[in-house]
């Protein structure tokens, strides 16, 4: 539907911004994994976009394709077994999937960076944290050891690690989980990326630390006006930070909404189920709602709407026709044939 991008020669300059293009746009992305058991369709036509200074939360359970989409954006999928049969990932209007490996590596880490879930395993255990942060400056900016070290201390201060100067020569295992995640974040923002993807950045952390890390990410985004993609399965974590939410299920986006609208009035049965399965103090003593059934097997996707076997709103049509993303309003859409019912139905 869109013109395939013609600017594949060379990289877009930093800051040079095509007026009509979002900072990052994923368009009809498909990713499949070729395994011995067959082809797993992990991502089936995902589209979302992100502007500078904006926070997009991508919500979904394990296997929904949210992390695979992020890995495709980063270009860190192992291919094979992964394959991208269709789709575009446009960064400043340039399709990243059409770039050479060399051009791609110029973007990875420098313009689009990523924070991983478990910072302990994502940091190299044999080098000090200072060495690892400084490495970013030495390798990509050609700084001297001394200068890079100074920058590393600055960055550790910026992500608010107490006593950065004393702790720069410590190893990752000597830090607490929250501090390790701060170090991971420091490394990812070292080169001033325009897009930061955080893949479940707080899942491995205590609830109190989760909030601090979220705050930190939100602040860093504001300071440097970068686009932030928060990948999570936890609705509670993103509520205060995100601008808009894309809910994924079975490799598709099932609902797009500004964050507060989604909480107030979900437009897809899956989102609604998720919201109702959050424990609430005012419902204490009642049985907690749970979405029935199991997440779909990627090797044998249900026909029609992938959610139909678990859906309380299902009709015959759902098993045969894949629902398109119906537009609810300018900013909202839902991939449910009966979104009106879900939308108007209030709570069950």
């Amino acid at each position, binding site marked *: 539907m869109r013109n395939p991008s013609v600017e594949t020669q060379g990289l877009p300059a930093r800051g040079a911004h095509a007026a009509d293009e979002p900072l990052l746009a994923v368009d009809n992305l498909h990713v499949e994994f070729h395994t011995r058991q067959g082809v797993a369709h992990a991502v089936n036509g995902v589209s979302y976009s992100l502007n500078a200074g904006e926070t997009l939360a991508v919500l979904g359970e394990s296997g929904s394709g949210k992390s695979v989409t992020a890995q495709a954006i980063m270009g860190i999928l192992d291919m094979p077994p992964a394959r991208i049969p269709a789709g575009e990932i446009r960064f400043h209007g340039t399709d990243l999937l059409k770039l050479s490996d060399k051009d791609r590596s110029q973007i990875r880490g420098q313009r689009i960076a990523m924070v991983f879930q478990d910072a302990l*395993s994502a940091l190299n255990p044999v080098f000090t944290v200072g060495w690892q942060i400084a490495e970013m400056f030495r390798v990509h900016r050609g700084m001297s050891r001394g200068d890079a070290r100074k920058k590393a201390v600055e960055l550790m201060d910026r992500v608010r690690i107490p006593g950065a100067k004393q702790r720069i020569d410590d190893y990752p295992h000597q830090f607490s989980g929250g501090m390790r995640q701060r170090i991971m974040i420091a490394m990812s923002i070292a080169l001033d990326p325009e897009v930061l993807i955080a893949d479940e950045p707080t899942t491995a952390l205590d609830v109190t630390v989760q909030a601090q890390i979220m705050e930190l990410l939100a602040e860093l985004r504001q300071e440097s006006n970068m686009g932030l993609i928060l990948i999570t399965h936890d609705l509670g974590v993103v509520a205060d930070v995100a601008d808009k939410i894309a809910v994924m299920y079975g490799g598709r986006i099932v609902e797009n909404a500004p964050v507060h609208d989604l909480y107030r009035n979900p437009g897809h049965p899956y989102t609604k189920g998720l919201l109702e399965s959050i424990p609430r103090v005012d419902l204490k003593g009642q049985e907690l709602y749970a979405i029935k059934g199991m997440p779909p097997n990627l090797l044998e996707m249900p026909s029609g709407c992938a959610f139909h076997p678990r859906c309380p709103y299902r009709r015959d049509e759902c098993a045969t026709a894949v629902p398109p993303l119906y537009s609810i309003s300018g900013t909202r859409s839902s991939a449910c044939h009966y979104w009106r019912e879900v939308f108007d139905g209030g709570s069950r």
Partner: protein
Amino acid sequence: MSNEMTVAPPPQPAEAPQPAKPGKPASLWSDAWYDLRRNKVFIIGAVLVFLLVLMALFPSLFSHVDAYNPATCNLANARQGVTGAHWFGTDNQGCDTYSRVIYGARVSILVGILTAVITGVVGGGLGLVAGFYGRWVDILLSRVAEIFFAIPAILGALLILSVVGRDNSQKWGVWVVVMALALLAWPLVLRIMRASVISAKNQDYVVAARALGAGSGRIMMRHILPNAIAPVIVTSTLNLGVFISAEAGLSFLGVGIQAPTISWGLMIADARARFLSAPEMLLFPALLLSITVLAFVMLGDAVRDALDPKLR
């Protein structure tokens, strides 16, 4: 009444959180060093190895008789038994066994270290490449390694050395034995390195390094190699003893080190026929050989315990 007695101590000033150990923080390597220094097996092994290396480098420190000088031998003194002048007795040519045992250390240590280093570098390097790149590179290297792996070590070495021949063996000295052993032993190191690299490659920090813009070479050398090399160091240290006894075995069989170079294996071979009448001729070189192999195995064991406590 007890209320008055339990005076609350003044609140401690909140201290800044301290790292667990004061001083330099612990990495895998400094942790391992910390463990090693407290390990008796390591200390005994290290002292023995130190003495043996010293013996190999400066044999004259241990013996005032130069075993390589034929003038020190006197055929009239052949197989004299243990005496005050000849602590370990004399051999068939009337040479002093003690000084020959001391001078024989050089060949053993040299063969052991050179073979261990060559197999470590070649096997480790190829294992790194095979494990990191996978696919056809891995298939090619692994199959070649398996071909060498299938050859029984002593038989293979016998074959190689007899093809090379005695003249060439004499010309190239220890190198012929070293290369024969290395040719047969590198696949073992390749396998260990490959497995270790594959497990390191799938660690999150390698993916994370890639996502933060590190290139292949940097990932391989900075992120995978330091995290995958410990098992290779352990195997190489343990193998050192194995190579030393293999050299002695090959020399004993007459295809390894050639006279006039002094080797414990050769000395044992010379003593074999007269074992009943002159047992000391066989006993002392065999004892030194055993001590040397034991010393390196102890060292290897201690290094393994320090680098991988899970294997204990």
